[in-house]
């Protein structure tokens, strides 16, 4: 396993290098200027020039990139232009709500997707399966922002059960925290549940057609033990793959959900940084999100080995 991790770490280096060059080029080629964006109503060209020089924005792009890479190699992601705080501090503040939201959404999706997925596969073509398909179609088709607004309308405005915006840390105030995360987590969790449920159902149907299932049934093993002990475990690989990919998206890409519910997460941070042309912040956050993706994929690979010893690296 350690070998796998080491192998992966080495393979990560060129990926991160490409990501860094890509994001640097893209954000610098986008029209707009961080100083103009920061001082929209200032007429003082002198102040702007001083700032631009201080931040090194007047130097050639290649030099700026080299300077940035040099600092990254020393573990320094730089400073936000807008709030003049280290990128790592900005991300540190935003990663907590994002991780909590991702974990909660994932939990909700598993609680919803597994029973429906298993039942749909086990009772294929029954009305239950039909209802499951309908649910997953709804979950996949429903845009996040629409679902978010509907949830706000029902649970926030009409029933007044849950707060509709803002964030409280569940580790500081558990009840208020969970309440503040409930609606955004349901918004993300339902869409994710739909994807996981469909994947689980189809991979279980495939496994159900395997010879070992027939053998197990022939031995007289009860249907639920067949499903629980044999089918489910073999059907999990694609599900774990989907979950791994979605986890990365949940942490860095829940922009719309974070925006609608006024949650201070990483997704909103990066979008706000793009609008402000806060170059170091955009670059730093994107790089960290890339690292996040790589780590979550690594975890998925390690899980494969645990679920299915046949693909364990010796």
């Amino acid at each position, binding site marked *: 396993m350690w070998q796998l991790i080491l192998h992966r770490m080495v393979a990560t280096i060129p990926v991160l290098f490409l990501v860094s060059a890509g994001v640097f080029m893209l954000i610098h080629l*986008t*029209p*707009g*200027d*961080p100083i*103009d*964006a*920061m*001082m*929209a*109503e*200032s*007429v*003082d*060209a*002198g*102040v*702007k020039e*001083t*700032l631009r020089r*201080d931040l090194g924005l007047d130097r050639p792009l290649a030099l700026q990139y080299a300077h940035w890479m040099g600092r990254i190699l020393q573990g320094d992601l730089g400073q936000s232009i*807008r*709030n*003049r*705080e280290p990128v790592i501090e900005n991300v540190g*503040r*935003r990663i907590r709500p994002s991780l909590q939201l991702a974990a909660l959404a994932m939990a909700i999706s598993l609680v919803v997707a597994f029973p429906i997925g298993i039942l749909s596969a086990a009772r294929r073509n029954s009305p239950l399966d039909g209802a499951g398909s309908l649910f997953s179609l709804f979950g996949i088709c429903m845009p996040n922002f629409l679902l978010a*607004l509907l949830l*706000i*309308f029902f649970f*926030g*405005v009409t029933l*007044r059960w849950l*707060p*509709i*915006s*803002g*964030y409280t840390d569940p580790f500081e105030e558990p009840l208020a925290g969970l309440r503040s995360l409930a609606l955004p987590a349901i918004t993300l969790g339902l869409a994710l549940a739909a994807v996981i449920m469909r994947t689980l159902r189809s991979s279980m149907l495939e496994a159900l057609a395997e010879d070992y299932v027939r053998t197990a049934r022939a031995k007289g093993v009860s249907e639920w033990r067949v499903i629980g002990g044999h089918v489910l475990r073999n059907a999990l690989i694609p599900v774990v793959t989907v979950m791994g990919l979605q986890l990365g998206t949940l942490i860095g890409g829940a922009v719309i959900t974070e*925006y*609608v*519910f*006024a949650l*201070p997460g990483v997704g*909103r941070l990066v979008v706000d940084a793009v*609008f*402000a*042309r806060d170059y170091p912040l955009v670059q730093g956050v994107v790089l960290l999100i890339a690292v996040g993706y790589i780590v979550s994929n690594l975890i998925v690979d390690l899980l494969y080995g645990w679920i299915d010893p046949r693909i364990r690296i010796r």
Partner: protein
Amino acid sequence: MPSNRARSSSRAVSRRAFLRLSALAAGGLAPLTAPGARRAWGQAAPKKGGTLRVGFYVEAATMDPHLSGSKVDRQVYHNIYEPLVTLDNKLGLRPGLAESWQQPDAKTIVFKLRQGVKFHDGTDFNAEAAKFNFNRMKTEPKSVRKGELANVESVDVVDAYTIRLHLRRPDAALLATLTDRAGMMVSPKVIQEKGAELERNARGAGTGPFQFVEWVKDAHLILRRNDAYWNKSGGPYLEQIRYRPIPDDTVKLQSLQTGEIDVMDYVQPRDVAAVKADRNVVVVDVPSLADFAYQLNHTRPPFNVKALRQALAYAVDLEQIVKGVWLNVGVPANGPIPPTSWAYDSSIPFIKRDLAKAKAKLAEGGKPGGFSFTVTTNNIPINIQEAEVIQAQLAEAGIAMKVKLVDSATLLSDGNSKNYEMISYQWSGRPDPDGNTYQFYKTSSGVSLNWSGISNPQIDAILDKTRETPRQADRKKLFSELVRLLQDELPMLFIVHPIEPKAFSPRVQGYDPVPDGMMRFREVWLK
């Protein structure tokens, strides 16, 4: 809070009603908008305590008024810091931290400072502190106030509570400039001890009715009542003010409707009618100082030709735009000076649509068959709608307008580099008409807010004269002359002076709307 007024007012504010409101606000007969009058209605006496929860569209950028470049910062500052001069709700100048002022000659202002004022850190506010602030604004490398104080040559301490400002040239607009960030006094001790940390932590820094407690970025910013506030008559009443950013307009409004916040800074025109019908929300129409327009690039075709600019102006129907796009939450603009200003000249009509004249001007400009150009505008719903309406109106005159949608950072850099033909420009406005005119129309080289590149000796001369003329009545005449010239030269296509409605929970009492749009909570209390 004039709740019954807000509820009973018509769903949209008519042009006439807005002008009347503005006139009242400017003329001082305003039982509708003045809070003093509200108390005279025999409402309950103000009571102390409670937390006011305020929803803003975006988070503040910095707590240091000398380094601040964004509007939302000012909303917070006006409760922590105090300027030398303040505005009343008719935009009149009132004593702030300066008790009085005199101008012995056109290039000297002497401020008598208020005694017995302490910063929140316990240090005294006095002439030395004021001088320190002016020097910092003028010399600190990152200071954003340099342009506003460019005419201030030096500051002398006359005695412990008197300072004298020496000006490079006469500047009739300077006092109004000192009603905002450029006049706000920060504790010198806090600046020296905290340094750059002041940007995140303004504890002890101001003299205002509320003091900074904490700012958890992206979550909330909390102010607490300053019990040692120097002015013992009236507020502050609130125990705390808690600001938080809610970026989505719909969600912000729903947060107000469900009682999660008590105040929201701005209601979109599309929501105004619905909100006014909601008994749980009180809307206050605050006529603004803003000036929404399109800059026309005088340095390149097609708008380097005056007749074509005029053809454009005659082809556009402002009444239709204000009615259809702004839903009457604003009035058609006759120029850059809003109806809230003492310098507004209601005898100058806005440019009315006249297709025959537009066609004649096209012919005069050498394009009898029309021409085509591109407008650069913000990719937000109301701007897109406005562009589409203008596009349709121009098409009837044979002018083809293409729409280029950009985000605000691109808009700013396109404007600063004059890389456009016609570009949206939304100016939040300044209390003195100078702030809505000089920097936009004065001949300038290099980067400036004069995006149109207009350079007209007659306009330049009037602009300079408005600064040198001390009497308001004389200045008003000059500004009227300027507006007429601008309507002829058209550096901008003036569209609308918007109203900035703010919404409150019915619990909130005593809010006094000042047309600069800043929410000062000193007199506010919770029922």
